[in-house]
C-alpha cells in the first residue's frame, strides 16, 4: 500500500504530463476489456495535456488527420437519409470499408466517439468550417427517440442521459441545433430528476453524479437554464434548483472527496461530475475546497495520473477528471475549463 501512495503533498504537474505522454504513445491492453475506445482515450490524453498546459507536445496536424479519417461519410443524399448515423467511429477496427459494389455494409458511427472527435478538433484548433457537419447533424436526428433520449448508434443500444449530453455538446460545438429536438430532450432530462434533487441516468433510477452532470450541462448548453443561476434574482427554473444544490453539496463526504451516489465511497471523478454541476449553478464556492484538494492528493499516483480511490493504481479516465477537478480548484499552471463542454475554455471559445 505504501509504495502506491504518493509522497507528494502538492499537485505534481510534471509527472502527470509524462503519464499522459506515455498513454498517448501506447494503449495498454488493460483498456481492451472496457468499452472505452481509441478516440475516447485520445480525448482524455489530448484534453488532459491541454489542461496541464502541455499541448505543444502534441502534433496537431497529425491528430487532426487521424481524427478526420475516422469520420463516416455518406456517398449521396439517399444514403444520408437511410436512417444511419454518419458521425465518427471509435477506432479503425469498427470502421469497415465499403464492399466491391461500394456499399457501406456497416457504419459503426457512435455519438460518444463523435463528441470526442469534435472535442479533440476544437482543442487542436482545427477549422470547423472544413468539417462536413451537415451529414452529422442531419443523421443525428435518427438517433433521438420519441421520449427525447438518444441512442448512441443506429443499430440499437441503450438510451440514457449520457447520449443526450453527447448530442447537445455536438450541436453546441458545431453551433447548429438542427441535430436534435431540444424540447423533447429537455422533457426527457426533467423526467430524470429524482425525488432528492439529483438526476438518474434514466427516469426512475437513483440520483447519480454522472447523470446529474449530463442533465445540467445539457440544459445549460441548450439554453434552458442560465449559467450561475444561484446569483441571479430570478427564482424560477424548470428544475428544482434548491433541491439539486442540496443534493450536490451533500455528495462531498467526510474525507473531502465527492461520491457519485448517497452513501457510496468518494471517487476522484465525481470531483468533476458533481463539482461541475455546482460550478454551472454558481455554487462551487460553497464546497470545502481544502478538503477536496486533500482528498484528491490521496488519489494522486507516484507514477503520475490519478486513481479512482486512494492508494490504487492510476487510470486514464480518473486521471483526466482529476486534472479537470484541479483546474476547477484553480491549481496554478493549469488552464481553466469550460465545464459544460468538458474541454478547456479557450478551446471552447475558439482560437
Amino acid at each position, binding site marked *: 500500500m505504501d509504495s502506491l501512495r504518493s509522497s507528494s503533498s502538492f499537485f505534481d504537474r510534471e509527472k502527470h504530463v509524462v503519464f499522459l505522454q506515455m498513454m498517448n504513445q501506447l494503449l495498454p491492453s488493460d483498456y*481492451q*476489456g*472496457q*468499452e472505452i*475506445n481509441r478516440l475516447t482515450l485520445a480525448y482524455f490524453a489530448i484534453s488532459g495535456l491541454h489542461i496541464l498546459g502541455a499541448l505543444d507536445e502534441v502534433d496537431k496536424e497529425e491528430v487532426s488527420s487521424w481524427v478526420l479519417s475516422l469520420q463516416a461519410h455518406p456517398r449521396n443524399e439517399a444514403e444520408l437519409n437511410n436512417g444511419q448515423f454518419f458521425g465518427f467511429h*471509435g*477506432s479503425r*477496427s*469498427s470502421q469497415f470499408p465499403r464492399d466491391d459494389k461500394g*456499399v457501406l*455494409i*456497416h457504419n*459503426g458511427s*457512435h455519438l460518444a466517439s463523435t463528441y470526442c472527435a469534435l472535442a479533440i478538433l476544437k482543442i487542436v484548433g482545427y477549422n470547423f468550417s472544413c468539417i462536413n457537419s451537415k451529414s452529422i447533424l442531419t443523421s443525428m436526428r435518427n438517433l433521438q427517440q420519441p421520449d427525447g433520449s438518444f441512442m*448512441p*448508434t443506429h*443499430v*440499437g*443500444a*441503450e438510451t440514457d442521459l449520457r447520449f443526450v449530453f453527447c448530442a447537445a455538446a455536438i450541436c453546441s460545438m458545431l453551433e447548429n441545433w438542427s441535430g436534435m429536438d431540444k424540447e423533447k430532450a429537455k422533457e426527457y432530462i426533467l423526467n430524470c430528476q*429524482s*425525488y*432528492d*434533487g439529483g438526476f*438518474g*441516468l*434514466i427516469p*426512475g*433510477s*437513483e*440520483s*447519480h453524479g454522472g447523470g446529474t452532470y449530463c442533465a445540467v450541462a445539457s440544459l445549460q448548453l441548450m439554453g434552458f437554464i442560465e449559467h450561475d443561476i444561484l446569483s441571479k434574482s430570478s427564482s424560477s427554473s424548470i428544475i428544482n434548483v434548491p*433541491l439539486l444544490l442540496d*443534493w450536490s453539496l451533500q455528495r462531498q463526504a467526510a474525507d473531502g472527496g465527492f461520491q457519485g*451516489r*448517497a*452513501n*457510496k465511497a468518494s471517487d476522484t471523478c465525481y470531483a468533476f461530475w458533481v463539482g461541475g454541476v455546482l460550478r454551472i449553478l454558481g455554487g462551487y464556492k460553497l464546497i470545502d475546497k481544502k478538503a477536496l484538494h486533500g482528498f484528491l492528493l490521496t488519489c494522486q499516483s507516484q507514477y503520475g495520473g490519478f486513481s479512482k480511490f486512494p492508494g490504487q493504481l492510476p487510470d486514464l479516465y480518473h486521471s483526466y477528471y482529476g486534472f479537470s477537478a484541479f483546474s476547477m480548484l484553480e491549481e496554478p499552471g493549469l488552464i481553466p475549463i469550460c465545464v459544460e463542454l468538458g474541454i478547456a475554455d479557450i478551446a471552447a471559445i475558439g482560437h
Partner: protein
Amino acid sequence: MFPNHISSRRQGWGELLGNSSLLSSMYFSCPSNVWHFRRLILEALNADLHEELNFIKKVANGNPKNYQIWHHRRWVAEKLGSDATSKELDFTKKILSLDAKNYHAWSHRQWVLQELGGWEDELDYCKQLLEDDIFNNSAWNQVCFNTCQRNTVFALSTLLDLLCHGFQPSQDFINAVDALKTPDLDLSDSNLATAVCSVLGHMDPMRVNYWAWRKNKLPAQTA
C-alpha cells in the same frame, strides 16, 4: 444486408454463437457492432432465447457493469416477454447479492417490473436489503420507485412499518411522500410517518379510522 449471408451459412453461424471465447475479444473492441451482429444471428436462427439468457449470465459474471451486456439482456427479455419475468428478477437479485448497488442491475430490474410485472415481492426484497444495510440508497430509491409507480396502499403501509421499526430515512424521502399529498390534507404534519398516515387515510378511506389510530400510536422516536 446481413440476412443473405446468414441463410447460406446457417451452420457456421450456429458455431459462432456458441464460441464465446472467440467472440469475446471482438465484443470488446467494437462492442455495439458485435452484439448487434449476434442479435441478427439469433433472429435468423430462431435460437432458443432461454439458452441465450444462460449465455449472458456467464458473460455478465465477469462484467457486471458492461452496458452492452445489459442492453443485450433487455433485448432478449423483451422478446421472451412475461416468460422471462422470474428469471430476470432472479438474475438481478443474484447480481445485487454481489454488489447491492450495481446501477445497471437496478435499472434492469426497474424495467422488468414496469414491462413484465412481478411487483408482489419487491417491497419485501427492498426491506431485506435495508435490513442488511440501512444506508443502501439504491434500495431506498427502489422503495420510492415502487411507491411512485404503484401508488398503492401496500407500498405506503410498508414504508410506515419500516419507519415504525426505527428506520431513519434522509430528509429527501419526505419529498416523495409530499408529492402524494393532496391540497385538502393536513399539511402541518412535520414528520414522515404522520404524513404517510395522513396520505393513507386519504387513499384508503375504508380504513380511515385505522390510519388515524396508527398515527396516534406512532412510537415517539419515529422519523
